[in-house]
């Protein structure tokens, strides 16, 4: 059983009194693929390294399979880690790299060879077994790093931005391979990335971190549809959700020179909170270009991606809005158009000061 619990775990930067990870609490099920995502400096790598035993747990606890890991050295935690820079042993061949952990455990050479060959077959590394890492490409080295982790059959996989050093196409390819591999092996995996696309496509659940604090821990769909605060709302989704702080009116909010209507229930929540301003969040796909009603905007830029186009605009008071549209019917630069909220589209409301979700 390899469930993982972070129980108010904290880590202090050495030589400072700032918390790198601030009271992180996560409950990870056995076999789950959890992604830790966040901008640089959010503490996600530190949180992973605390799990692996490479950073001290200064406050709180981390439990693996119910056992407290405070004070337990890395080599006794039965965790395999894939590093961002792969950390392959340069003087050992691929086969020796992959078999090192087993050798340390005293596994016989015969059995070691078999396990290494099995893993190499899964990862397509069989022809490279006798090469040294210096003679491999980036993608091949990444696979060796994964192979080294798989061969150990550990309780937990830790992966620290393993795809960052690969080119874009290889990244997409390897992303699916890692996800498929994890599903096949069923090992609990904690994966760190700054790329929210990786987070959304690979994770069973995703934990968004900012300045060491957990913002939200939910499935990708929940993060997308119901972000807990303005930060998560703006972080997940590309292009980012439109987030503007606007004054509240009788029936809705004032955007630019026009008014966008809101639901009764939402307006009640705003007035209950005693606010006359609110941060409104609308995803680009919820805004559409209309001829009749809507907010008056001027087109600044049109990004044509082939299957869809994104129109970057600004409204009267300097408010910037991004809308999605059909590339064949996209407006031109400097056109004046109207943007309207799709009637079924969700409007997210956040507190203008704290960023907390209101609806």
């Amino acid at each position, binding site marked *: 059983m390899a469930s993982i619990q972070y129980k108010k775990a904290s880590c202090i930067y050495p030589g400072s009194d700032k918390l790198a990870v601030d009271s992180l609490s996560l409950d990870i099920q056995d076999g789950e693929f959890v992604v830790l995502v966040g901008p640089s400096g959010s503490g996600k790598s530190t949180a992973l390294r605390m799990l692996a035993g490479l950073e001290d747990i200064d406050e709180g606890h981390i439990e693996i399979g119910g056992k407290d890991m405070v004070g337990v050295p890395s080599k006794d*935690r039965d965790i395999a880690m894939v590093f961002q820079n792969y950390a392959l*042993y*340069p003087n050992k061949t691929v086969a020796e790299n992959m078999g090192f*952990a087993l050798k*340390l*455990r005293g596994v016989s050479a015969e059995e070691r060879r078999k396990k290494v060959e099995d893993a190499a077959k899964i990862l397509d590394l069989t022809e490279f077994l006798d090469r040294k890492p210096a003679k491999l490409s980036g993608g091949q080295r990444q696979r060796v790093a994964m192979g*080294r982790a798989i061969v150990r059959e550990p309780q937990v996989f830790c992966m620290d931005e393993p795809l960052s050093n690969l080119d874009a196409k290889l990244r997409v390819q390897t992303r699916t391979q890692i996800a498929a591999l994890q599903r096949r092996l069923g090992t609990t995996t904690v994966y760190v990335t700054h790329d929210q696309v990786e987070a959304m496509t690979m994770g069973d659940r995703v934990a968004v971190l900012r300045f060491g604090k957990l913002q939200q821990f939910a499935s990708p769909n929940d993060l997308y549809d119901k972000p807990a605060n303005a930060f998560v709302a703006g972080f997940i989704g590309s292009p980012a959700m439109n987030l503007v702080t606007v004054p509240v009116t009788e029936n809705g909010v004032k955007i630019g020179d026009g008014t966008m209507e809101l639901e009764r229930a939402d307006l009640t929540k705003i007035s209950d909170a005693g606010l006359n301003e609110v941060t409104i969040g609308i995803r680009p796909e919820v805004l559409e270009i209309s001829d009749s009603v809507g907010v008056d905007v001027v087109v600044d830029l049109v990004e044509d991606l082939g299957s869809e186009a994104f129109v970057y605009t600004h409204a009267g008071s300097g408010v910037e809005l991004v809308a999605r549209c059909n590339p064949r019917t996209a407006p031109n630069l400097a056109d004046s158009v109207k943007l309207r909220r799709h009637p079924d589209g969700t409007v997210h409301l956040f507190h203008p000061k704290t960023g907390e979700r209101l609806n």
Partner: protein
Amino acid sequence: MTTTAEKSTEATAPAVASKKKSRKFSPWGLVAWLVGLGFFFPVFWMVLTAFKSEGDAATNPPKLFFTPTLDQFKAVFEQGIGPAMLNSIFATGISTILVLLLGVPAAFALSLRPVRKTQDGLFFFMSTKMLPIVAAILPLYVIVSNIGMLDNIWSLVILYTSMNLPIAVWMMRSFFLEVPGELLEAASLDGASLMRSVREVILPLVSPGIAATALICVIFAWNEFFFAVNLTAVNAQTMPVYLVGFIAGEGQYWAVLSAAATITALPVILCGWFAQNKLVRGLSFGAIK
């Protein structure tokens, strides 16, 4: 637009090619050759003289062409260079082994396991090299004399070890710093204890650096003269001190002196030759760090 651009590149291409050609005979290359030859010439002359008879060696103007003879080398060995050679080998060998045994763990601690006082420790090591050897010789002589270790090869062993240790630690530290920290982390996650990680992961990576350091220590210890001449007499005499004996008062025997000097210099020249790539690498890494 495109045609004019192509034309201009064609025009510059031959100019670039001719520039490259002329670089072959640049004045700086010539200077380098001259300087190199200037440094090499005395050594060359010494080795040449070692093969001359005394008569040939003493001519004025000096002779470049002569019949070579091995008589001088025979004379050197007959005059008993053996004990001095053994002393040099002993002092150099033992001190280098001690330097490696002490210096490698020290460098490891100061690089891969730094603590708050690491910089202070490093400075302390380096500061021992800042004292001129001449200033230290008086107290050292008194101490060595008082403990009855004058003319004892072990005094030299101890002094050479402490003389080379700072350099060795400094050099090896720069090699240890080259090892990516992630490798140690990966080894520890794989289940390796500290000793195991050092043996299987770090040492193979650092071994060229250790070899370069060992060679530097050998060169310094072998050539060391000041401690040897002051603290030894007959029994513990090393090769550099033995050479002094050839500078006789009653007239110079250039040829036999050159032969003795050649024999003394030979081990170090060979060491340097075999290790030249590693030495450059080792010394320049220290500079970058």
